[in-house]
């Protein structure tokens, strides 16, 4: 176990507290860089989606996790980014330019949403962001001259420095990875800066933040704008990855998936956003696996452990029927959300911290360290 002695402020805000961090993140980055030459193209595709979801997760984390402003409308920001890219690409605007333009426009709209949100709290803010998302969805479906309505828009491959980057190529993956890494590093730096400290202060207590001289309104709008802009960047990549966008892709369902990303990952850490993104993207391959391979494997296991041939075939059938049920994905989402809220509110990252602490304190670990305290909140109406 390593003890860190912080003797000044610089030690406290250092990006890598000790050399172990540099080594482990360096190794992780190296693994990610050689991944496209090792993994199958299907897994690469999933990895690209992990990068995009994680980018949105980090954006949502800035807003929900660090500023305490819940939003169920991030699918709309993603849509605005994606559609801006698709529209500008039609007029042969180069990629770097429309990439930045999409982020800027989304950020601007995010700030505009942030202004009304200043007066709202908790549940009202959630409902307002849902309404915003619905309105955006409807505009995308109706403004046919720009968005092509329900027929959707095609988007061509990225052309970068004169070369065409297809959506399945390693280069596109590197692009997504670069955006994700830049977002994470940028967010870490943001959180070390006065702006980030103000965000956290607002989350913990708005009244206290105001009395310390934080301009609450300004920082809330900033938080909305930054979060929306990053989501807009992710939207451009999302559009390129899918190569076709239409309004029904950006529904409330997608917004909820983003919330699940940060909820499962843990609402207070950037690691959490990445872990949550991996989790949510991997549900689909897992379900396919459950449908295609699991029944055979389990039937094989049953057969070797003395179940008769008919019995094994019966087990195989029932598992296959269960796995191909229509709403299985939704049910799994529902159960996972409930289990995480009830039993592991700190998410996967919280679980990791517990495992780490267990080994650090080995014989002395106490489960009660993380026991939930019973709390009673007073009426929010009087807040």
């Amino acid at each position, binding site marked *: 176990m390593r003890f860190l002695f912080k003797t000044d402020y610089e030690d406290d805000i250092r990006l890598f507290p000790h050399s172990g961090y540099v080594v482990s993140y360096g190794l992780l980055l190296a693994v990610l860089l050689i991944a496209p030459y090792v993994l199958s193209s299907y897994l690469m595709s999933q990895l690209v989606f992990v990068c995009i979801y994680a980018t949105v997760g980090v954006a949502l984390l800035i807003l*929900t996790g660090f500023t305490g402003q*819940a939003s169920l409308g991030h699918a709309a920001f993603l849509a605005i980014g994606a559609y801006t890219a698709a529209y500008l690409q039609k007029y042969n605007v180069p990629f770097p330019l429309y990439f930045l333009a999409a982020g800027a426009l989304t950020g601007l709209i995010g700030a505009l949403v942030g202004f*009304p949100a200043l*007066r*709202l709290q*908790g*549940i*009202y803010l*959630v*409902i*307002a962001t*849902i*309404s*915003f998302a*619905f*309105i955006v969805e*409807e505009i995308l*479906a*109706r403004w046919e001259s720009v968005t092509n309505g329900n027929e959707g828009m095609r988007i061509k491959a990225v052309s970068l420095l004169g070369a065409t980057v297809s959506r399945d190529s390693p280069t596109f993956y590197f692009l997504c990875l670069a955006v994700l890494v830049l977002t994470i590093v940028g967010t870490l730096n943001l959180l070390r800066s006065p702006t980030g400290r103000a965000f956290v202060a607002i989350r913990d207590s708005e009244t206290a933040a105001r009395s310390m001289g934080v301009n609450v309104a300004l920082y809330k709008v900033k938080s909305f704008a930054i979060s929306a802009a990053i989501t807009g960047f992710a939207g451009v990549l999302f559009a390129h990855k899918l190569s076709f966008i239409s309004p029904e892709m950006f529904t*409330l369902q997608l917004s*909820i998936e983003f*919330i699940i990303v940060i*909820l499962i990952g843990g*609402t207070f850490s950037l690691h959490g956003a990445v872990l949550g993104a991996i989790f949510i993207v991997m549900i689909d391959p897992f379900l396919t696996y459950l449908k295609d391979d699991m029944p055979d494997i389990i039937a094989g296991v049953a057969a070797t452990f003395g179940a008769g041939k008919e019995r094994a075939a019966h087990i195989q059938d029932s598992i296959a029927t269960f796995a191909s*049920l*229509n*709403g*299985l*994905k*939704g*049910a799994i*989402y*529902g*159960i*996972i*959300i*409930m289990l995480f*809220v*009830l039993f592991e*509110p700190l998410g996967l990252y919280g679980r990791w911290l517990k495992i780490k602490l267990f080994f650090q304190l080995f014989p002395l670990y106490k489960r009660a360290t993380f026991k939930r305290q*019973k*709390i*009673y*909140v*007073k*009426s*929010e*109406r*009087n*807040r």
Partner: protein
Amino acid sequence: MLDFVQQLVSGVALGCVYGLIALGFVLVYKATEVVNFAQGDLMMLGGFFAFTFIGMMGLNYWVGFAGAVVAMALFGMLAERIVVRPILGYPQFSIIMATIGLGYFLRSVAGMIWGTDDFKIETPFSQGVLRIGSLVLAHDKLSVIAATIILCALLWLFFNKTTLGTAMRASSENMLAAYYMGIPVKRVVSIVWAISAAVATCAGVLLAPITFIHSNVGLVLGLKAFPAAVLGGFGSIPGAVVGGVLIGVIESMAGFYLPEGWKDVAPYIVLLAVLLLKPEGLFGLHARKKV
């Protein structure tokens, strides 16, 4: 003019359904400060229970209705016990997420059990129409309006005239203080969830002849009931019904007089406007905090 009245009446009937779902939100919110995102799905489940009793088992309409209400009340208590009680008192965000999860789960499971088709319940009101001059009013719509008025009155009496209702209001103001004053807060919360699930079931059954029952109906109508609850001011029972009726009328009018597409967004535009101008809603209490 006739068109207008016709639209008005069907808007009011639709709005009453929103109001009934919103009543469920408001009941739970009033007593526990929990916003139940699964309310629409409870309604959907109630409709399916009634369909099972009436359509599949062939019971009498009223017996099936009562059976569904009782079954859903028990289910509401169960859901409260399993999902909400462990996190009661935690920040809104956790509870919103937990109920979203519950909603997802119920929707998918209902789809697995009953399939994804549309279902219809034969009701005593399905056929008849009431004619006033050249105005045609279907009985099923009138039944929704009447039921809403009755339920609303009953709930108002319950909250304002009974001890249990007072206990609920007390536990909503300050759970800890209510607990110290001898109110069995946990049981109160259980009962509130039972009532709210029962109200949702009424909505589901009454709605069955109008929009049919399918596994996604809860999501669609639940999201429309939110503007209703907010418009009326979360936590006000008359507000929920008035808000619901307003939303229903706005939607109906927008569908008739405005170009296509406005119908679905009009309620949300109104909602945003209300949130901006009067965040506490039309009937909401503007409480001040004493420091």
